[in-house]
């Protein structure tokens, strides 16, 4: 017998044994007559007759009557009780049949429940096995991950130790620097206080100096304007002196027919083209280098042109005007960033080329 039958027997055994015992009692009860009244007690042993009173004579008779009446009543009662008991037995039999059917239904339900339980148990066992497998896998993975984390943590701890050691050194250095900075800050504050104390006096002195500087600048500007006027007035004279070889031969320079010849002679006499290479070596600015290249082309053209040709003079003037040469030279001279020999060369070129466009 398997476990399921044991369970079923264990569940149905009390009820079944009770029903069996009840059935046996009923069968026994049906098979014997109804309970009869208890047999009358055997007559008491006759006492010694003695002259008795009427009570002793009649009392047993009364008792016998009473007992007979009571036995009759008992019999009647037993008959009523028997019919009632039969009805009850019929009802109980119906109840027993009902109970038997219910018992069978219960057994059927128990069998179904047992099948479901067994099926569910097998399902649970398979699920449990799967869960165990997954759990073992997860445990293995967790252990591997824990090992990796442990290794990484160990490496990180070692790295952090090195870093902490380094940071400790840096922190000590920073603290030293901080203390030095605090000391410097205190010194600066002290100096600032002293400066503030002297600030008012310095401001007044500076304001006076600014006023003096403005006055000096105004005077310098006036002086510069006078010098500029003087320079502009002197330029034609210097040009005449330069192109005429030191002799103020005004008619030679101003003559439109021969001014180019005078400029050619002056350029050759002062060897402007030959000095261009040395001038280029002393340049400090790229724009000045382009200016020197342009001047070199113009001076070369001046050296080779036919001074008698009006068309060549016009073309030469056109080249100078197109290159905006005189303004560029004046701008470079005003900037004053080049060495003195470069500025002198540029000034000579300015003297040489000044007025070419007007003269042509």
């Amino acid at each position, binding site marked *: 017998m398997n476990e399921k039958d044991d369970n079923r027997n264990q569940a149905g055994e009390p009820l079944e044994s009770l029903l069996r015992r009840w059935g046996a009692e009923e069968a026994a009860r049906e098979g014997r007559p109804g309970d009869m009244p208890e047999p009358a007690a055997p007559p008491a042993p006759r006492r010694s007759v003695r002259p008795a009173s009427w009570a002793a004579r009649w009392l047993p008779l009364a008792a016998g009557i009473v007992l007979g009446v009571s036995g009759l009543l008992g019999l009647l009662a037993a008959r009523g009780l028997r019919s009632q008991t039969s009805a009850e037995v019929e009802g109980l039999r119906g109840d027993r049949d009902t109970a038997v059917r219910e018992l069978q239904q219960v057994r059927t339900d128990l069998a179904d429940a047992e099948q479901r339980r067994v099926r569910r148990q097998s399902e649970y066992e398979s699920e449990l096995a799967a869960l165990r497998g997954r759990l073992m896998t997860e445990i293995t993975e967790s252990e591997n991950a824990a090992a990796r984390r442990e290794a990484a943590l160990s490496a990180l701890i070692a790295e952090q130790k090195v870093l902490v050691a380094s940071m400790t050194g840096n922190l000590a250095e920073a603290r030293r620097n901080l203390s030095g900075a605090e000391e410097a800050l205190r010194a600066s504050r002290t100096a600032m206080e002293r400066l503030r104390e002297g600030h008012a006096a310095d401001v007044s002195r500076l304001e006076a100096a600014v006023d003096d500087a403005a006055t000096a600048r105004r005077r310098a500007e006036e002086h510069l304007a006078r010098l500029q006027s003087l320079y502009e007035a002197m330029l034609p004279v210097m040009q005449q002196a330069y192109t005429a070889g030191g002799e103020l031969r005004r008619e030679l320079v101003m003559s439109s027919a021969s001014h180019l010849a005078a400029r050619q002679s002056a350029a050759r006499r002062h060897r402007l*083209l*030959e000095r261009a*290479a040395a001038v280029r070596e002393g340049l400090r600015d790229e724009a000045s280098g*382009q200016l020197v*290249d*342009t001047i070199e*082309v*113009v001076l*070369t*053209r001046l*050296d*080779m*042109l*036919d001074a*008698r*040709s009006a*068309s*060549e003079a016009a*073309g*030469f003037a*056109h*080249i100078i005007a*197109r*290159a905006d*040469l005189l303004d560029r030279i004046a701008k470079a001279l005003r900037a004053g960033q080049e060495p003195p020999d470069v500025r002198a060369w540029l000034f000579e070129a300015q003297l040489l080329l000044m007025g070419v466009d007007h003269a042509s």
Partner: protein
Amino acid sequence: MRAERLFWVLGLMALAVAGCAARGPYDHRFRPGAVRRDLDAGFDEAVALAADGRYDPAAERFGRLAEMYEYEQQSEAVPDAAGQPDTRALGRGRAAEAVFWLGYCREKQGLADEAAKHYRRVIDEYGGAPAARQARLRLAHLEGRPGP
């Protein structure tokens, strides 16, 4: 009277035909003034390009101008208006100068060998021209010699 007038007309026509035949085929030398003005304008434009530091287009123009001036200076002398210089002599000077400027542009472009070739050509072929003096100066500078 009428025969005399006809004689003069025929004579003038004959002189005109003879003159045209002597001049040869028509080319630019029949208008030397106009051609020279065009060439000179192109020459000034090329010099302006060189002054502006644009040596490559300037060299290209100077190369063409040198050929044209050389062609012109090889032609016969054609007297222009009274008092104007001989166009052949002017063409020779301009041809020398164009070759010089060609060498100058190449020198500025860093092509020293080609520049020296052009300078030597100016000195050899146009020794008396003003450009020859500048060519000697530039060539001496290229060769690291003191200038003449």
